[in-house]
């Protein structure tokens, strides 16, 4: 399904302005784009908050350049924020854009291709001067008559001039006045989609409380934009998107990184444990550290380490000390942590390693999304070094899976990989606030007495699931030494004995496999056998499910299963895969999950792969499913 409007219902009612018509629509996709200094992320977030609070379902896709401030007006410096809001359940930020706001020629050039035919294009015509046109490599002004924008409903708005006029008399410099034009654009779009301005006005007032003239300027720009839509003849229609029918409850907007940080703080608090987070700044994982560092009264201690290796090894030390220990990074940082993670596996200490995947290899595409670190996370360590791996499917699911990662780590005394990606880390969706009573504390147990027959402490004496005990410094009588060298089973003493090494290798593997009994069974949406099963993992959930659901509505025999527990897989996954004639695995990589599924289950899984730093479009998945069923 293109997430754009289905048949729009014309309701020829006046909204009070002469000649204006209100149209009811189900789903709208808006994209704000401009220079990276134009405040596009800010207005996108404001629109999202207002729409979520109104009761729409929302999904967002921030898209910003790796450069903090590329040269003004350049193609490299364009920053965008796309959001989809709807009266229906939605799982993606939309394929095609209904309304595009372009603040300069470069933004127009890089984004207009995603605007649907007949879509609304709002441009700041004041910025289409010769210099900006040159920077955007336009040979002539695309806004001039006879140019290629005739497929769209184009609104040329002199935003710079109107913003300056609106703030006149406040004593602002031209530069300061111009910084308000994003709020002019936001005000205009608020009018267009019948949004309540009040939450944003409150936000501006509080944000700039120390600088009343700047607050007043932004308020005036917002209102000027709104009133421009209301009063000019250029805009004849505005739209209403009614509330979505989400399950009852209290909601808030959440991004994946916020959800991870919140889950860590809540887990520490309700489990009455210290949570130690060691991290090194890296896009797109840094926000986790930012969020957590302000939650010190939840039992959280954060450490900005000197490098990625210090980040992972610091959490190993903290875990040895008995803390819930977490680090987060992205591809290049995870690569650096490899040896440390192996030490975590060898010492069988609980910890969570979050990998917010981005485009690779090497520095790759720091601000773009990809799923290409599955191999790295599964296999990127020396030796036979198995560890559990789970992946979140949406921003809100990051909360659930963070709890799961901590639970598995502690219950099985092992490092756990938690995979997310740039798309769900920065993307937002409405999130139903959980009942606190529904959250399970992390089951931490530290022995207080010896476990050996002769009153000694045996750090590698295991229970029936092969899990060793977690004795911590400060406990009398349980003094022991562990480290990266192979150790004798039970005693934990350094051991080079060949049979012991083989036994320990199998034990470490078997312990991870035992986790399969402690995770939910795999479920399928759609027929439980048939022509085609689409298998997805991670942040592609929304697009894949939307596409499969759309095909099912067309009557196609297609089912969907989304894997959140990747190592070990749920024990019924092999059985599910065997019940369909064809298995299709769409991934934002060259086929990493497919490779693992083929290796483990000898299933002839086919791939559908996109490696553009961008999420799947629903439409391309639908075509692929249709094509597969036909072939």
């Amino acid at each position, binding site marked *: 399904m293109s997430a754009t409007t289905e048949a729009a219902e014309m309701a020829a009612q006046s909204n009070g302005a002469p000649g204006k018509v209100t149209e009811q629509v189900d789903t709208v996709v808006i994209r704000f784009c401009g220079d990276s200094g134009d405040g596009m992320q800010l207005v996108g977030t404001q629109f999202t*908050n207002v729409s*979520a*609070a109104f*009761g729409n379902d929302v999904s967002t896709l921030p898209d910003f350049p790796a450069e903090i401030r590329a040269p003004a007006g350049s193609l490299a410096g364009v920053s965008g924020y796309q959001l989809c809001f709807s009266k229906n359940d939605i799982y993606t930020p939309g394929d095609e854009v209904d309304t595009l706001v372009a603040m300069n020629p470069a933004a127009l050039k890089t984004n207009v291709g995603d605007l649907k035919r007949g879509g609304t294009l709002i441009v700041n015509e004041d910025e289409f001067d010769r210099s900006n046109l040159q920077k955007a490599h336009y040979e002539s002004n695309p806004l001039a008559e006879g140019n290629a924008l005739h497929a769209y409903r184009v609104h040329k708005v002199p935003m710079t001039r109107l913003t300056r006029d609106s703030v006149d008399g406040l004593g602002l410099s031209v530069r300061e006045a111009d910084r308000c034009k994003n709020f002019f654009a936001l005000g205009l779009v608020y009018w267009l989609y019948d949004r309540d301005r009040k*939450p944003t006005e409150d936000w501006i007032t509080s944000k700039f409380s120390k600088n009343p003239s700047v607050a007043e300027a932004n308020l005036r720009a917002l209102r000027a934009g709104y009133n421009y839509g209301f009063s000019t003849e250029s805009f004849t229609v505005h739209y209403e998107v009614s*509330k979505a029918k989400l399950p*009852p*409850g*209290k*909601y*808030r*907007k959440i991004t994946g990184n916020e959800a991870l940080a*919140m889950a860590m703080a*809540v887990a520490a*608090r309700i489990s009455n444990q*210290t949570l*130690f987070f060691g991290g090194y700044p890296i896009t797109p994982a840094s926000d986790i550290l930012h969020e957590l560092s302000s*939650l*010190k*009264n*939840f*039992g959280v*201690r954060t*450490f900005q*380490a*000197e*490098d990625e*290796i*210090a*980040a992972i*090894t*610091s959490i*190993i*030390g*903290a875990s*040895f*000390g*008995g*803390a819930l*220990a977490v680090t987060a990074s992205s591809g290049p940082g995870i690569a650096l942590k490899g*040896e*440390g993670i192996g*030490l975590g596996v060898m*010492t069988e200490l609980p910890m969570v390693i979050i990998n917010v995947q981005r485009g690779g290899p090497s520095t790759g595409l720091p601000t773009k999304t990809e799923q290409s670190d599955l191999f790295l996370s599964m296999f990127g360590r020396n030796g036979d070094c198995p560890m559990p791996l789970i992946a979140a499917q949406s921003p809100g699911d990051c909360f659930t899976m963070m709890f799961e990662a901590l639970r598995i780590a502690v219950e099985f005394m092992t490092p756990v990989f938690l995979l997310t990606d740039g798309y769900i880390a920065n993307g937002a969706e409405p999130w139903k*606030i*959980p009942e*606190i009573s529904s959250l399970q504390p992390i089951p931490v147990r530290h022995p207080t007495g010896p476990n050996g027959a002769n009153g000694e402490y045996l750090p590698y004496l295991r229970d029936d699931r092969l899990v060793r005990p977690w004795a911590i*410094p*400060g*406990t*009398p009588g349980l*003094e*022991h*030494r*562990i*480290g*990266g*060298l192979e150790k004798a089973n039970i005693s934990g*003493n*350094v051991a080079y004995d060949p049979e012991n090494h083989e036994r320990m290798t199998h034990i470490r593997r078997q312990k991870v496999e035992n986790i399969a009994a402690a995770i939910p069974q795999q479920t399928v949406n759609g027929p439980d056998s048939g022509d085609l099963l689409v298998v997805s993992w991670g942040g592609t959930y929304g697009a894949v499910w939307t596409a499969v659901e759309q095909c099912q509505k067309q009557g196609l025999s297609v089912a969907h299963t989304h894997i959140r527990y990747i190592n070990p897989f749920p024990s019924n996954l092999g059985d599910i895969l065997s019940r369909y004639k064809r298995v299709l695995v769409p991934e934002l990589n060259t086929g990493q999950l497919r490779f693992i599924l083929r290796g483990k289950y000898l299933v002839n899984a086919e791939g559908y792969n996109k490696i553009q730093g961008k999420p799947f479009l629903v439409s391309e998945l639908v075509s692929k499913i249709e094509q597969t069923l036909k072939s």
Partner: protein
Amino acid sequence: MSTDVSLPVLTAKDFASDQEIRWCPRCGDYSILAQVKKVLPTLGIPKENFVFVSGIGCSSRFPYYMNTYGFHGIHGRAPAIATGLKIARPELPVWVITGDGDGFSIGGNHMLHVLRRNVDLKIILFNNQIYGLTKGQYSPTSPVGKKTKSTPYGSVDNPLSPLSVAIGCEATFVARSVDVDIQHLTMVLERAAHHKGIAFVEVYQDCNVFNNAAFDFASKKDQKVENCIYLEHGKPLIFGANRDKGIRLTGDGLPQVVSLNEVKEDDLIFHDEKADDPSLAFLLARMRYPHLPEPMGVFRSVERPAYDAEVMRQVNDINAKYGPGDVNKLFNSGDTWEVK
């Protein structure tokens, strides 16, 4: 209240683990292990509170030989492991055992940062100026010209001085001793153990297999009095078997050996380990054998809030200000809405 709070009296033996020690016979490590075991029982701290953290190398086997909690880490990372542990459990006394390769080559970055942060750790650097565990390559502290397996024609690397680095990072406690100088080493380790904040102790350690006799100048009875200056706070820098030589500053600020027959004691450099400015300590660290006698003992011992204590101060301040974290409030921060 009359609760008996006295602790069981521990001895060095209580700190010995049941593991067979696998260092080479006559390795300098034995002596350092023995002195540490001797010092710990004097501190009045329960045995179960100590944690020894190490990296990789001969010296890093140390934790296995102590009957305390211990963590044998990976190459170079002991300071980072110990920092995480110390933030999680600030009440534990944590000792880091490292070597010249572990601490200043592969782990150099962590060393800089643990020193500048002033984490409350005791770091013992076993400096033998060679890679022993990998069987004899030159290390970042080996002298220029050193012939080893990987430098058959002599090393062309300029070595670093661990103490210069530590003082450059403004470590709050910096000292040096020698493995077999038992009394001196014990004194230095005791001073380190009592210091609040980072304590960095370089111990010249003889690798009798791959770098035999490298520190004879500082360990042999007849040589050390001529080649070393034993630092005492507030005292002038005097050395020599007859204590007739001293160090004074030349006009251009460099240390110079002078005879006490010609120069008054008052004109010598007086040691001030408590000087907040690290310049004097740095000057002492730059005095190297054979050009000048090498200082031994405590170079610098100043007070500054420890990192882990500051982390906890912030945690406590925030708790006092806002109360324990309210999950409900956290969930409901920002805009929320009700769906009926």
